[in-house]
């Protein structure tokens, strides 16, 4: 800058400053707004109570459409669906559910699956985002509260007395990223007091390090003092004392099984028999169902059932004599006579599109219900089957990638 230019600039600056002072002598008035208060009923409660059918209903988690579907057990039709989750655009991935019908509460785990979005920036167990346990009202499906859990919640189960909610974490990312370090590979169970979930800021639930990629959880009945956990990455069932918050033992699902992140059996599901004495375990790698005697805490190798396909969540009949096993690839459901050395009573292979990727079976009333994942893009299905013949009584569409169901009303 030349001296002349500099002097001129200083003069102009002085003029501007003085002008500003002059302006200050004729000040603009301060404007203060005063508004009337709104006198009406702002944001009135518009959610209507759900009218449940006399025959009862099941709720289905639609994990890729962020909805809960309600299916009439009398007509077999879906009669309602409600959004669930926290994020208004991304997929929260409601994964499995538990209900407390007496308390009118539903609990689901938000798993935030990593989805194939098609873009260069980009499944169950591979999330890097913390999950949540969320509670909803069974009366109108409003969301009442939530608490953060760990990444990749896998199963969510409620004790019979409704006082203990247990969430496992099927965290394959943790398992893979910490290969060779068993302690770091192991994921947790979160133990939640359901009564805290509706607090504005629920306390963080205590965790128990349990095993590599724990998935299904079965609670001892009726006390829920123990959890039997399918340890997918360790080929074992972890027996957890929930009161003492410690793992009592890890029982290999087969003799010599001792995987540390490289499973040869891959236990994924675990369903307790009605009398609470036998745990049926679906092993996804070895493609079989094995059984644990709860009284002796010993596997029953003579009862291991080869399933051809990959077993998912099986169902016991009310008398415990029949076990229904869903399998994927091939897509089928098997009826096994557990009272007579696992004789195959019936087998139903599904045609393409009939029940793609059956995930879970349950006896509800006089029907065997099977939740079919579908292709994870189009709606999945719930099939109502005859328990004896496995023929289809009814089919209804639900949301995308359904993966669990629970009964919410009506006489059993």
């Amino acid at each position, binding site marked *: 800058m030349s001296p002349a230019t500099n002097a001129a600039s200083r003069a102009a600056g002085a003029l501007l400053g003085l*002008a500003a002072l002059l302006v*200050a002598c004729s*000040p603009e008035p301060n404007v203060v*707004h005063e*508004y009337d208060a709104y006198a009406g009923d*702002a*944001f009135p409660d518009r959610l209507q109570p759900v009218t449940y059918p006399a025959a009862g209903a099941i709720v289905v988690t639609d994990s890729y459409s962020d909805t809960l579907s309600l299916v009439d057990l009398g007509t077999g039709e879906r009669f309602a669906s409600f959004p669930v989750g926290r994020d208004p655009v991304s*997929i929260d991935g409601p994964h499995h559910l538990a209900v407390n019908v007496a308390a009118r509460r539903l609990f689901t785990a938000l798993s935030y699956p990593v989805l194939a979005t*098609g*873009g260069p920036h980009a499944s169950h167990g591979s999330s890097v985002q913390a999950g949540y346990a969320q509670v909803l009202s069974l009366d109108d499906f409003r969301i009442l509260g939530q608490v953060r859990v760990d990444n990749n919640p896998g199963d969510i189960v409620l004790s019979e007395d409704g006082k203990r909610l247990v969430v496992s974490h099927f965290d394959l990312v943790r398992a893979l990223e910490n290969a060779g370090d068993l302690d770091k590979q192991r994921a947790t169970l979160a133990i939640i007091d359901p009564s805290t979930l509706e607090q504005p800021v629920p306390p963080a639930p205590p965790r128990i390090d349990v095993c590599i990629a724990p998935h299904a959880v079965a609670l001892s009945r009726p006390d829920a003092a123990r959890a039997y956990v399918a340890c997918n990455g360790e080929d074992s069932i972890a027996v957890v004392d929930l009161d003492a918050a410690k793992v009592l033992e890890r029982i290999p699902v087969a003799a010599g099984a001792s995987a540390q992140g490289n499973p040869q059996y891959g236990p994924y599901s675990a369903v307790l028999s009605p009398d609470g004495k036998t745990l049926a375990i679906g092993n996804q790698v070895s493609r079989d169902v094995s059984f644990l005697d709860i009284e002796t805490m010993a596997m029953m190798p003579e009862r291991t059932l080869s399933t051809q396909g990959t077993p998912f969540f099986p169902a016991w009949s009310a008398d415990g004599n029949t076990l229904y096993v869903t399998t994927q690839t091939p897509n089928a459901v098997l009826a096994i006579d557990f009272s007579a050395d696992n004789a195959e009573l019936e087998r139903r292979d599904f045609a393409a599109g009939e029940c793609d990727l059956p995930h879970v079976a349950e006896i509800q009333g006089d029907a065997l219900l099977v939740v079919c994942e579908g292709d994870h893009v189009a709606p999945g299905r719930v099939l109502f089957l005859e328990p004896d013949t496995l023929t289809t009584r009814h089919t209804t569409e639900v949301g995308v990638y359904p993966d669990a169901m629970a009964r919410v009303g009506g006489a059993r």
Partner: protein
Amino acid sequence: MKRVLCTSLLGAALLGPGCKGDPETEVVHGTAVDHGKALFEDPSIANTSFNSYACASCHEPQADDSELALPGAPMAGVLGRPDYWGGKERELLDAIDHCLYYFMLRDQPLAKDDEEARALYAYLESLSPGGVDTPTDAAPFTVPVKVEDVPAGDASAGAGAYAAACALCHGDAHTGSGRLVDRAPVLPEDSIADHPSPGYSDAERRLVFIEKVRHGGFLGYTGQMPPLSMETLSDEDLGHVLAYLGL
């Protein structure tokens, strides 16, 4: 002459402290609807200096109020809608709180009894003849989870589409002139710089752009950008925008 002016100004300045310097206070009275409208148009509702967006940045009061293709639905009839955010939210206040949190960086939700919340409701009610008891259709809001390439477009048509859908936040293409906030990327240069060659092919750069437009700060992306639904910007118009930007 200049000196005289300066002297006069200096004299005036010396007199300055003698001015009655305290400005008068003018009280402007308004209704709750006025209050709600003011809040609707004011970024300060977010309670943070980091926010530059108002509700009105993304929502028009009435459909077709302008030629802009805004990401949010018009507010007319909003009280009677059965749900919001494409069916993923059933309660209006929660729907508003999503906007405040994701796009406007407010860290606390509005409570039903907050004066500001009630005033906003009053304004929205004024835009909803018949109020909450007159059902209206849900505003469509389709955000595809999986994105794919869009049809090749026309650059001249893209200029209009860009002006309608992008320019308000991003300013002029290539310069960013007139953008709402400095941190809004200059398009397409900043986006390309973040996805350099040879790490990304030309096709992948198109997909990056498409993914960001469709998903905004969701579905694995971050940032404050709202998703532009299929109803806000069709694949055809998005193809025109890409052609206009030379992608």
